[in-house]
């Protein structure tokens, strides 16, 4: 509790994300917060957490202070159990070997669809974003956690372009489209933690981050939010969590 004023938005995002991962799980982590959070979880008493990276890595232990600049760099392979082709590591998702896909997001909508391709009309975009990478594959093939900054322009009713499918148009539309497995089940921001309604597949607030009000979350969201019946308040980051995190990312590469 005493540390509540002493962490950045990126830091609480990372800590809460790390908490969502369990020892023994196989987690396919994207670059940035997901990589850092999964590494943090390993260091916080979950050494049996296996991290997979898109570059073609199974079971890496990233070294403190040596965060890789992408998931395709050699630093991702340090003390890994296996290095393999990048299509082959994605096929592990398709086959079903991976428990959790864990990605950042640029823009998300009420059904958990992610856009990382276009702002505006795809034929004449206002902004051409980087694109899918493995994002489409991960979200199509695996149960997924998204960690992202909470801003009104990022939390929209409907994304301009579905790069990575959440529940598409809700209900059974994801399964009907040919995606019977996986789906986003958690969205973690610096304000709150979200889940999805089992039937409508619409996003809902599960818990508020320490010191954050429901109103504040709604104000930063571009559509009317649903709050779970039993909305809780998340425990603030502990000193151990923050210290370990700062040891891992001393230059604040991902937690600026």
């Amino acid at each position, binding site marked *: 509790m005493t540390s509540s004023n002493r962490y950045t938005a990126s830091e609480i995002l990372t800590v809460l994300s790390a908490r969502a991962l369990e020892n023994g799980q196989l987690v396919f982590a994207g670059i*940035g917060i997901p990589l850092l959070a999964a590494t943090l979880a390993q260091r916080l008493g979950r050494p049996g957490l296996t991290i997979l990276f898109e570059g073609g890595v199974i079971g890496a232990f990233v070294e403190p202070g040596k965060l890789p*600049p*992408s998931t395709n760099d050699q630093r991702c392979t340090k003390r890994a159990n296996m290095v393999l082709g990048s299509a082959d590591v994605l096929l592990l998702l398709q086959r079903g070997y991976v428990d959790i896909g864990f990605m950042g997001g640029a823009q998300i909508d009420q059904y958990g669809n992610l856009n990382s391709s276009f702002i505006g009309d795809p034929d004449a975009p206002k902004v*051409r974003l980087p*694109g899918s*990478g493995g994002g489409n*594959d991960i979200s199509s093939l695996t149960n997924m956690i998204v960690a992202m900054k909470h801003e009104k322009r990022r939390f929209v009713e409907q994304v301009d372009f579905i*790069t990575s499918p959440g529940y598409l148009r809700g209900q059974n539309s994801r399964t009907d*489209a040919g995606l019977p497995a996986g789906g986003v089940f958690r969205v973690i921001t610096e304000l709150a933690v979200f889940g999805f309604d089992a039937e409508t597949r619409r996003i809902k607030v599960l818990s508020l981050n320490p010191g954050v009000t429901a109103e504040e979350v709604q104000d930063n969201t571009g559509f009317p939010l649903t709050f779970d019946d039993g909305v809780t308040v998340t425990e603030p980051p502990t000193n151990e969590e923050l210290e370990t995190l700062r040891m891992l990312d001393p230059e604040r590469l991902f937690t600026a």
Partner: protein
Amino acid sequence: MPSSDVQSYATLREDLAKRDRSLREKVVSLEEAAGLVRDGMQVGIGGSTMSRTPMALIWELIRQGRKQLSCSRCIVSTDGDLLFGGGVADEIVTSWFAQGILWGLSKVMRHHVEAGDKRYQEWSHLAMGMRFRAGGMGVPFLPIRSMLGSDLMPLRPEAKEFDCPFTGEKLLLVPALNPDVAIIHVQRCDAYGNAQIDGLQFMDIDLALAANSVILTTERIVSNDQIRRMPDHTKIPFMCVDAVVEVPYGAAPHECYGLYEPMMKHMEAYVAQVNADPVEGMKAYLDRFVYGPKNWTEFLSLIGMEEIVEASRQGRSMYND
């Protein structure tokens, strides 16, 4: 041929039958190798993001003024900037195109794509992999279970939604990609082109098999005897390879697994310069670092000894226990 058209089996086989696939020495200069890439070709690029990018060859293609290439790669970073900004590529086929998580969007890509003078053809990462793999297998497509339902699917009518005749399930058939030429950087190979790749291999093996010709740049040319002592370490076989060029630090300023990490000061200065002005900044970069040097070694000396040594120290530390 449009870059998304699938070649007929007859064409694939005829093109391959014409190649001299025999065990023969193929060592050429960087200049000669770049000459094998001709205007308008489809070029597959090895490595991924900032790893084992065949930078020396891309650098030489820009110097030689190659034009209208369609380049494909699993993930594109500053190599894509140079291909667009250096005027050699009109189209890049990939799954992700940015300068890297540390610097965000590529202003160079945005400048050219949003203006409409260059094209970025987007596929999912797995789809890129299965396109190269189908090409390498000699089949016209492979089935995948991603891209379905997303807006990527209607964006890419080259892929076909398909009802599985075995299970009735929906699948996506992605078309084979057989580039005219592949350019791949490796840690070592012999004069015939038998290549060893350490660490991350990305999609390079499929790409080498898929392409209708392959240029290897290599940190080091080793003897065929050395290759034959560990045949299960060979990742690309000689008969896929048409040219071999020895270029130490040939992926600079990107990394080469186990040898050097990215040269980050150079990269940061580059990004700051081209993001400030994607046209003039790029022009200044090209003038100084691409057109300026007499040869690749002189380019390395512009990066500077301190960066090269530090990147090498970091790169080799992969093998520290």
